């Protein structure tokens, strides 16, 4: 048995696409998550980034068992939870919490906020009424809300305030693992700093473990120990944070890094992102072999569209699924397009991971 808190093995979630009204016939499937594997150690933060619609939230929901995976395994704290029943999951639920991406949709509109946060505590029977109320008010303050917010309804909050309610609710039961799906995207940078600092403090004090999904690459860089880049249901690249930002291997990672806006009007206007051409592919009918090939500036016909790249490994633990990885970083647009190491080169320098 490993010492990992979370092990995800070959996770797969396909949604059926049906036609017909009375006799629903499955005509295809959305391959939202398609063979994703990774591990997270206790006290570690794994950042997850990737294009909108690439399967991050679906993956998170499968880990939480809010969705049933169609394949693969989820092992939490040494226990395979993939096939546990609802009742068997109940005691585990308070050890793994989730902060949802859509804060409004995940809050009960008819309940006051104090109740919503307390609910997590009460479901798990943690303390008397007075204790619960005190703890809730503490939590609200910790996430930067006023005590006057205790009696309000979700619709009376701003977008960022709702997001913080979600954070407070996740923290309520002292879980071991928190899967954060865009926990700070609706927050201004100062409140965001406050939440990120809080998450880091909690990690230090209680050894919390995070899977942290976000689009803001600066935020991910700040909070993560390792970062996973997903593309269309698969892992494109996984590496230690500094490696990924300093020396990305996958062209998609490169395109992402070059697209980060710069908070400086002059420099921002000069920024030259790598433009991804072509249509965004669909998970219903994903491209053959390397799923990124139709948009990849380094595409090699007869190779990338024929042979699916395995996760080649580079230096310790840095893996990327690309036949023509980037040689260095940053690259000029010219260099970006011209892959130097041929198919044999890539294979020679990197042995495929099983």
């Amino acid at each position, binding site marked *: 048995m490993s010492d990992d808190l979370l092990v995800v093995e070959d996770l797969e979630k396909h*949604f059926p696409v049906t036609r017909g009204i009375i006799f629903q016939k499955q005509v295809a499937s*959305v391959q939202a998550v398609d063979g994703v594997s990774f591990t997270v150690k206790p006290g570690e933060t794994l950042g997850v*980034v*990737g*294009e*909108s619609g690439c399967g991050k*939230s679906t993956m998170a929901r499968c880990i939480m068992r809010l969705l049933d995976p169609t394949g693969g395994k989820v092992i939490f704290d040494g226990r395979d939870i993939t096939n546990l029943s609802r009742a068997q999951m109940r005691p585990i639920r308070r050890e793994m919490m989730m902060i949802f*991406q*859509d804060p*409004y*949709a995940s809050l009960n509109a008819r309940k006051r906020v104090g109740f919503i946060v307390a609910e997590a505590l009460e479901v798990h029977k943690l303390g008397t009424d007075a204790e619960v109320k005190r703890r809730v008010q503490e939590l609200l*303050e910790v996430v*930067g809300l*006023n005590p*006057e917010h205790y*009696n309000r309804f979700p619709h*009376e*909050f*701003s*977008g*960022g*305030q709702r997001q*913080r309610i979600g954070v407070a609710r996740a923290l309520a039961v002292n879980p071991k693992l928190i899967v954060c799906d*865009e926990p700070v*995207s*609706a*927050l*201004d*940078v*100062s*409140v965001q*700093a*406050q939440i990120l*600092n809080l998450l*880091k403090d909690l990690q230090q004090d209680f050894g919390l473990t995070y899977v942290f999904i976000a*689009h*803001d*690459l*600066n935020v991910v*860089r*700040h909070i993560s120990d390792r970062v996973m880049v997903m593309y269309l249901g698969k892992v494109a690249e996984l590496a230690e944070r500094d490696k990924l930002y300093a020396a990305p291997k996958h062209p998609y990672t490169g395109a*992402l890094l070059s*697209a*980060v*806006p*710069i*908070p*400086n*009007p002059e*420099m*921002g206007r000069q*920024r030259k*992102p790598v*433009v*991804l051409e072509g*249509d*965004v*592919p*669909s998970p219903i*009918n994903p491209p053959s072999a390397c799923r990124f090939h139709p948009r990849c500036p380094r595409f090699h016909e007869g190779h990338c569209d024929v042979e699916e790249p395995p996760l080649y490994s580079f230096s310790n633990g840095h893996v990327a699924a690309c036949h023509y990885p980037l040689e260095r970083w940053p690259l000029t647009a010219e260099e970006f397009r011209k892959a130097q190491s041929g198919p044999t080169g890539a294979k020679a320098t990197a042995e495929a991971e099983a």
Partner: protein
Amino acid sequence: MALLEVNDLKTYFRTDDGIVKAVDGVSFQVEKGQTLGIVGESGCGKSVTCLTIMGLNAKRNTITSGNALFRGEDLLTMNSRRLREIRGDDVAMIFQDPMTSLNPVHTIGRQLTEAVLLHRDVTKSQARARAVELLKAVGIPRADRRIDDYPHQFSGGMRQRVMIAMALVNDPDLLIADEPTTALDVTTQAQILELMNRLQREFGSAIIIITHDLGVVAETADDVVVMYAARIAEQGTVDEIFKRPHHPYTWGLLGSLPRLDTDTERLVQIPGQPPSLLNPPRGCRFHPRCPYVMNVCKQEEPELKQVTGDHDHLQRCWLDEQTKDREAAKLLHASMAEATS
């Protein structure tokens, strides 16, 4: 005449605990073809400002005053028929919460087609074609097929893009975009911003963009309004705000950014809690959290005044200009060091 002119806008909500002054005397203008960025602390009144302009606050419990002149017509007092005509056609809004603004029981296609039919004299199939075209433009793969999906079958970012498509249906003259790209990855974000840019180039539309991403503001806005606790703390051209910010709250914002070059364990955060809008602080609303606080700040609220040498740059702070210029220069220096590293 500006395309949109907002004067002394106030929106108060009655709640069980008292009156929440969510927007408290906000004025700004937007010219044709220009982009105004609105930034500010979470909960400071950015969305409510825009919802009020669009006439979309619940009538019950809401007290509104001031005016919002769109081509000279006051959106706040016009009759609801005229407002409906303008809304979704001349003025469109992208909402912050995509799930709440999409109807969960209707397909994406039906909602988009209805938006087209409402303002345009076209056939159903033409409307549907327009809907597919827009879904493609916002980067939804296999748009022709996914148009018959329900909102819950879309990812967070895809729903947000549907909202954007919906707002662009009739090529509006004024687009109000509330956090249009927060749920999107940076490459999709770039695509959406380009789409908005094209709307501006082709139709000379004006855009109000609310965002927490200062990078997006820097790269898209012509003018910037910085709000704090229901009021404007500072406003000016984008270059002025980023190069010569004159309000300690703006300094705090620019200073809280996670930076790519530094490995700080902790981010700088503005100390203290966001203010209550039930009982906003006396004097300058930022004073309890301001590192530069003086006695006068606790007594009297500063007015929104011009910065010497730039009549477009307004700020609300008691500090002397010398100190402000010095602090602004320090910040700029730090951010230049970061960006060039």
